[in-house]
C-alpha cells in the first residue's frame, strides 16, 4: 500500500515526461495521458477503500526520521478529496480528447503532459505531511498552471496571465517566508510535530503564524480580498484548462487551509475567518451578477462558493468541518461540469457571450438539461448535491449561533440562483441568434471523424453530470465519510500519533 501512495505522485510525473517525449505521436500521447489518469483515479479509489477500513497510512520517504525527512500521510480527508479531484481531471481530459483538431482545443502537445504534472502536484499537495513539501507541491501545480494558462500566447491570455503569475508568485514567496518563520519558531516543518509545538508558543506568535498562512492559502483559494486575480484570468484559457482550474486549483488552497488551520488549532482566528467567508460569498456573487459572459459569471461563482467552504472551516466544529469537506466533494465536479457545458455552448454557438447566444434550449435540449442539473446543484436546490452540502454548512452555522454569516449564506444562495437564471435566459431561452460559422468552424478536412469526436465531448460532460448526481445519490455515505474525516481533523492527537508512530 505504501508503494501505491508513492505511485500516486510519481506515476503522473513520470507519465508526463513520457508524454512530453511523444512529440508528434498524438495517439500515443493521448493513450498515456488518459490511461495514467484512469489508473491514478482507480488507485486513489482503492486506497480510499483501504484507508476507510484499516485507518490512515503513513509513508516515510527514504525511512528518514519525520523531523528531517518527508512523510506522506494518506488519511480519509486527503483520499476522499483526491479521488474526486482525479476523477474530475480524467473526465476533462476525455473532453479534451473529443475537442482534438477543433478551434477550441488547447495545444495538445503541451496541455496533456502539463495536466499530468498538475495531477502529480495535486496528489503531492493532498498527501504531503510537511510544510516545505507542500510548498513544492504548490509550485508544481502553479508552474504547470502558468504554462497552461498562457501557452497559446494570445493577447488576452498574456495580459491576464501576467497578473495571475505575479500574484501567485508573490503568494509563494510569502509562503516560503512563512516556512522560515515557522522553522525559526518551532524548529521543524513536519506538520505533526508542528501540531505538537505551535500550541506551546506565545499566543502572539501563534496569531502571527495563523494570519500569515491565512493570507498565503487564502490567496491560492481566492478568498476576499485576495480573489481579484481569479475572474480575470480563468476565462481566457481554453475550456478544458479553465474547467480543471475552476474545479481544482482554488480547492487545493481550501484543502490546505482546512488541514493547516485545524491541525495547528487556530480556532482563535474564528471571527476573522468568518468575516472573510461572508465577504467572499457576497462579493463573488455580486460580481457574478454584473457579468455578461457565461465563463466570467461562472468564474465569479468560484469565489462565492469558496466562501461556504471557509465558513464551514471557520466554525471549527465537527458539523462545520463536515460541511466544508462535503462542499469540497460537491464543488469540484459541479464547477468543472458547468465549465464543460460552457465549452459545449461555445462549440455550438461560437461564443459564450450571453448577448450573442440564445434559444439553445430549442435547438439542443440535451445541452440545456446538462446545464440545468449542475446549475441547480450550484444554487443549492434539492435534491442535488449542492443542497446537501449547503444544508450541512448552514446547519452547522445555526448550531454554532453565527447568525450573521448564516443570513449572508442564505442570501447568497438566492443570488446564485438568480445568476444561474440569467445564464439560462441568456443562453438557452429567448430568440435564437445565428451562429457565426465563418470564423469559428474548426479547420479540419475530416468533418465526419470530427463529428464523431465531438460526441465525445458531450459524453464526457454527461459522465461528469452523472458524477455530480452520484454525489447527491450517495450523499448519506459521503456525509458519514466527511464526518469521520472532520472528527479526525479536529483531533490533532490522532494525526500526531499516526504520523509519529
Amino acid at each position, binding site marked *: 500500500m505504501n508503494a501505491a501512495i508513492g505511485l500516486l505522485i510519481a506515476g503522473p510525473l513520470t507519465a508526463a515526461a513520457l508524454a512530453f517525449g511523444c512529440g508528434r505521436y498524438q495517439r500515443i500521447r493521448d493513450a498515456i495521458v488518459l490511461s495514467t489518469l484512469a489508473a491514478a483515479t482507480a488507485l486513489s479509489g482503492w486506497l480510499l477503500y483501504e484507508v476507510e477500513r484499516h485507518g490512515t497510512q503513513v509513508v516515510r520517504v527514504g525511512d528518514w526520521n519525520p523531523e528531517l525527512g518527508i512523510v506522506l500521510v494518506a488519511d480519509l480527508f486527503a483520499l476522499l478529496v483526491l479521488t474526486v479531484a482525479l476523477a474530475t481531471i480524467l473526465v476533462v481530459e476525455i473532453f479534451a480528447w473529443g475537442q482534438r483538431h477543433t478551434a477550441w482545443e488547447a495545444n495538445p502537445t503541451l496541455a496533456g503532459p502539463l495536466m499530468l504534472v498538475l495531477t502529480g502536484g495535486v496528489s503531492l499537495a493532498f498527501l504531503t505531511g510537511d510544510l516545505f513539501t507542500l510548498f513544492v507541491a504548490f509550485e508544481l501545480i502553479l508552474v504547470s498552471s502558468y504554462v497552461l494558462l498562457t501557452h497559446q500566447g494570445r493577447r488576452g491570455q498574456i495580459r491576464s496571465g501576467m497578473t495571475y*503569475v505575479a500574484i501567485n508568485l508573490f503568494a509563494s514567496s510569502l509562503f516560503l517566508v512563512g516556512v*522560515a518563520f515557522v522553522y525559526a519558531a518551532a524548529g521543524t516543518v513536519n506538520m505533526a510535530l508542528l501540531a505538537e509545538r505551535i500550541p506551546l508558543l506565545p499566543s502572539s506568535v501563534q496569531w502571527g503564524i495563523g494570519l500569515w498562512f491565512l493570507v498565503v492559502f487564502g490567496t491560492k483559494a481566492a478568498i476576499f480580498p485576495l480573489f481579484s486575480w481569479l475572474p480575470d484570468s480563468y476565462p481566457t484559457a481554453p475550456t478544458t484548462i479553465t474547467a480543471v482550474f475552476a474545479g481544482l486549483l482554488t480547492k487545493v488552497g481550501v484543502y490546505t487551509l482546512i488541514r493547516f488551520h485545524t491541525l495547528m488549532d487556530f480556532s482563535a482566528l474564528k471571527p476573522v475567518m468568518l468575516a472573510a467567508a461572508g465577504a467572499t460569498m457576497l462579493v463573488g456573487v455580486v460580481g457574478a451578477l454584473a457579468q*455578461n459572459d457565461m465563463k466570467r459569471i461562472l468564474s465569479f461563482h468560484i469565489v462565492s462558493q469558496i466562501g461556504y467552504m471557509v465558513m464551514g472551516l471557520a466554525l471549527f466544529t465537527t458539523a462545520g468541518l463536515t460541511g466544508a469537506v462535503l462542499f469540497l466533494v460537491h464543488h469540484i465536479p459541479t464547477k468543472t461540469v458547468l465549465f464543460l457545458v460552457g465549452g459545449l455552448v461555445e462549440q455550438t454557438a461560437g461564443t459564450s457571450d450571453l448577448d450573442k447566444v440564445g434559444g439553445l434550449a430549442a435547438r439542443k435540449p440535451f445541452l440545456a438539461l446538462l446545464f440545468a442539473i449542475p446549475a441547480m446543484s450550484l444554487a443549492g436546490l434539492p435534491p442535488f448535491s449542492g443542497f446537501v452540502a449547503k444544508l450541512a454548512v448552514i446547519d452547522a452555522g445555526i448550531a454554532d449561533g453565527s447568525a450573521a454569516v448564516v443570513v449572508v449564506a442564505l442570501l447568497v444562495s438566492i443570488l446564485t440562483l438568480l445568476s444561474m437564471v440569467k445564464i439560462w435566459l441568456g443562453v438557452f431561452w429567448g430568440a435564437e441568434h445565428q451562429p457565426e460559422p465563418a470564423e469559428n468552424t474548426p479547420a479540419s478536412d475530416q468533418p465526419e471523424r470530427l463529428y464523431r469526436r465531438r460526441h465525445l465531448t458531450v459524453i464526457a460532460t454527461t459522465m461528469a453530470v452523472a458524477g455530480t448526481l452520484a454525489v447527491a445519490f450517495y450523499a448519506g455515505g459521503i456525509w458519514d465519510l466527511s464526518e469521520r474525516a472532520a472528527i479526525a481533523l479536529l483531533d490533532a492527537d490522532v494525526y500526531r500519533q499516526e504520523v509519529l508512530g
Partner: protein
Amino acid sequence: MSVVLVAAVAGLCISGIYLITARSLSRIVLGFSLLGHATVVALLAAGGPAGQSPLADQAPADELANPLPQALSLTAIVIAFGLTLFLLALARRQQQIEGDDLVEADLEERRLRARNRRQESGDRPKPISDRRRFNRRRGDDPARRDSQSNLTVVEADDEPGTTEASS
C-alpha cells in the same frame, strides 16, 4: 539570529515589493528575484547560528551549521530560477504583441474607464468597435503595432467578454 540577516531580509523585501508594484514586467522580474533572495536569507536565518559546513566527521556535531534550511534554500533557489525564466518569456511575448512589456489594465478597469468617459462627455452609450481605443492611454503608434503584428500570429479579439463593454 543575527540582526544583520534580519535587516537584509527586510531591505530585500522592501525593494522587491517596490519593484513588483511597477507596471513594467522587467522590473517585476527583478522584484521577484530580490524577493526570492529575501526568502532564502530568511530560511538561513531561521536555521540558527552559523557554523562549520555540515559534512559528516569534519567537525564536532555541535559546531555544525544546521543543514536542513540549506536544503530548503537550494530547492527554493531552483524554483525561483525557473520562474524567473518563465516571467522573462512572458515579458518577451508581451513585447511581441504590444511592443512593450507593460502590464495592461484588466477588463473591469477598462470597462469602468470607458463608462466614466461616456458619462463625462454625456454621450449615449454606443458600441465601441475598437477596444484598443480605451485599452491603452499612452501615445500609441499604429504603424509600429502593425509591424509588430506581422511578425507574430496575433489574434486581436480572442478574449471572451470584451465586446460587451458597451452594454
